[in-house]
């Protein structure tokens, strides 16, 4: 019983972190129409920054040479800021481009960053990564309840991001973003500086992803570059597409579904003897789900309010007309 409970706790924690990632991506794609395929970069920058700010100074045997031993909240804030700065730098060359160019460039920049994580041993520990990242309040919380406590922490962050982006959506800023998304020329005609709005949305989404990264670092306590491959970006996209983009609820629902599915099927192979091929079968299913969702329910499970399927297609149309 206790075992099942701790399994559910850990799945919920991972799902919560992915939900935060998906909320960040929803600000990019759902609100601002930015086709960001390099989301993992912000996740990684948040995680590594928070880790480096909080771990103790490394000993001579360790590959990396920094470690500032600062309190964990400083690390988390630092992770968010660093992700925002990276977004700013990535945004300068990319946010003036066509949407589909942005997809290609962002996936490439995320890959370059991953090569950096693998090769810059002095900073990131290279392929060996960084170990022994501290968890918050380990002394104060009894060990038996610790994972539950961390889940609570993740949920608080998730609710915070949800409320913030919901407010953002209803603000004048959010309305301008959606107007740019749906008809950029009209927004320009109204005198809106679309680049600036896009940049702000890009940074906000990245900061949220950086928060997810920091929470991830202090949850797993170890970081290696292999954990930051493109499949994180794709998983987040799948969550957003299936859950429904344009509203943070869809992002949360999608992340919950995808992660529970991924984790729940992890123990199936023992039962049906599918051991070796199970991981790939699972991904095939996820891919089919994306294709089917776009074809039959492009608005996702929880659609953006006041938008019909025809309008959604219109939106995709109007975006592709700009190509």
């Amino acid at each position, binding site marked *: 019983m206790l075992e099942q409970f701790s399994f559910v706790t850990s799945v919920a924690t991972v799902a919560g972190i992915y939900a935060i990632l998906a909320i960040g991506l929803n600000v990019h794609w759902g609100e601002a129409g930015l*086709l960001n395929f390099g989301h993992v970069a912000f996740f990684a920058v948040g995680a590594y920054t928070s880790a480096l700010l909080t771990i103790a100074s490394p000993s001579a045997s360790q590959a990396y040479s920094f470690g500032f031993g600062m309190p964990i909240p400083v690390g988390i804030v630092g992770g968010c800021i660093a992700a925002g700065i990276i977004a700013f730098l990535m945004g300068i*060359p*990319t946010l003036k*481009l066509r*949407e*589909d*160019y942005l*997809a*290609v*460039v962002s*996936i*490439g*920049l995320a*890959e*370059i960053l991953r*090569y950096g994580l*693998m*090769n810059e041993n002095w900073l990131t520990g290279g392929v060996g990564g960084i170990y022994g990242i501290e968890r918050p309040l380990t002394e104060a919380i009894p060990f038996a309840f610790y994972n539950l406590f961390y889940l609570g922490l993740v949920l608080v962050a998730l609710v915070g991001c949800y409320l913030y982006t919901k407010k953002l959506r209803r603000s004048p800023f959010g309305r301008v973003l959606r107007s740019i998304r749906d008809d950029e020329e009209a927004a320009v005609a109204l005198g809106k500086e679309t680049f600036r709005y896009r940049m702000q949305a890009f940074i906000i989404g990245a900061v949220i992803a950086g928060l997810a990264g920091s929470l991830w670092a202090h949850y797993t306590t170890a970081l290696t570059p292999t954990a930051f491959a493109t499949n994180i970006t*794709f998983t987040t*996209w799948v969550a957003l*597409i299936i859950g429904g983009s344009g509203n943070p609820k869809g992002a949360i629902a999608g992340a919950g579904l995808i992660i529970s599915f991924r984790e729940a099927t992890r123990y199936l192979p023992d039962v049906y003897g599918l051991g*070796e*091929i199970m991981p*790939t*079968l699972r*991904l*095939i299913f*996820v*891919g*089919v*789900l*994306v*294709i089917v969702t*776009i*074809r039959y329910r*492009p608005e996702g499970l929880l659609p953006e309010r006041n938008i019909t399927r025809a309008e959604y*297609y219109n*939106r*995709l*149309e*109007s*975006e*592709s*007309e700009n*190509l």
Partner: protein
Amino acid sequence: MISFDPQFLINGLTTGGTIALAAIGLTLIFGVLNFINFAHGEYLTIGAYAAFVANVSLGLPILLSAILAVPVTVVFALVIDRIVFYPLRRQGAGALALLITSVGVSIVVRNLIETIWSSDTRRYDLAAGEAMSILGIRITAVQIIILVTSLLLMVGVHLLLTRTTLGVSMRATASNQSLAMSSGINTEQVVRWTWVIGAGLTAVAGVLIGIDTVLRPTMGFGLLLVMFAAVILGGIGDPYGAMLGGFVIGFVQEVSVAFISASYKPAVAFMIMVALLVWKPEGLRGGT
């Protein structure tokens, strides 16, 4: 002081040749269907594995295997188009719906290949070729084959685009779809032929890369970014630009080893692309 090593030239040309072949396919499909196909790398992998089945499982000679890989990949691409992309086109879905769908296709196909052949690396059954020396440059028989094949196919593409009705229709559809339709071009037929040519060239690129290195289920996906770089460098939708872009990328990747760590080799193509996008978004050859 780094002196110019002609060896880079030959390595760059062979790498560039394969990238260029695959990039022509990607850019033609973009031109005619107007979406970036994220599953394009998987067509390359399918081509390579189709030849693997013919060559290793059935014991056929590599040349015959390579020739067989082309129709297999083409049929595969046409089937995918019919059951996945065509219904979306008919629904009137935009480029972004097609793009996201192609990401789904890429995930499905890549993992299907891994389910069948596992993630182990595979090799064709080939006699080990010896390197020969021409004017002090070491060149292997495989490199000569790659160069000759890719150059011949590029000439073929050029003749097709300029001397045949199909090629002219393709270029017309790429530059203005509705105008092409109103002048009586059957665009769905042009779309099908674009898949045939694009997938066919990409399959050959896959086999050539397999001959030069090894096969693995992620080989095409790993090259996708490099192909994107070549396509964008040449100006998206422009087949001649893709050829030029492929060679530039291949060449710069090889030369970069002299300046920065070889572990960044795959990132170099991309840095060039980003730099170019900032400086000249319409591609090296200018607006079309």
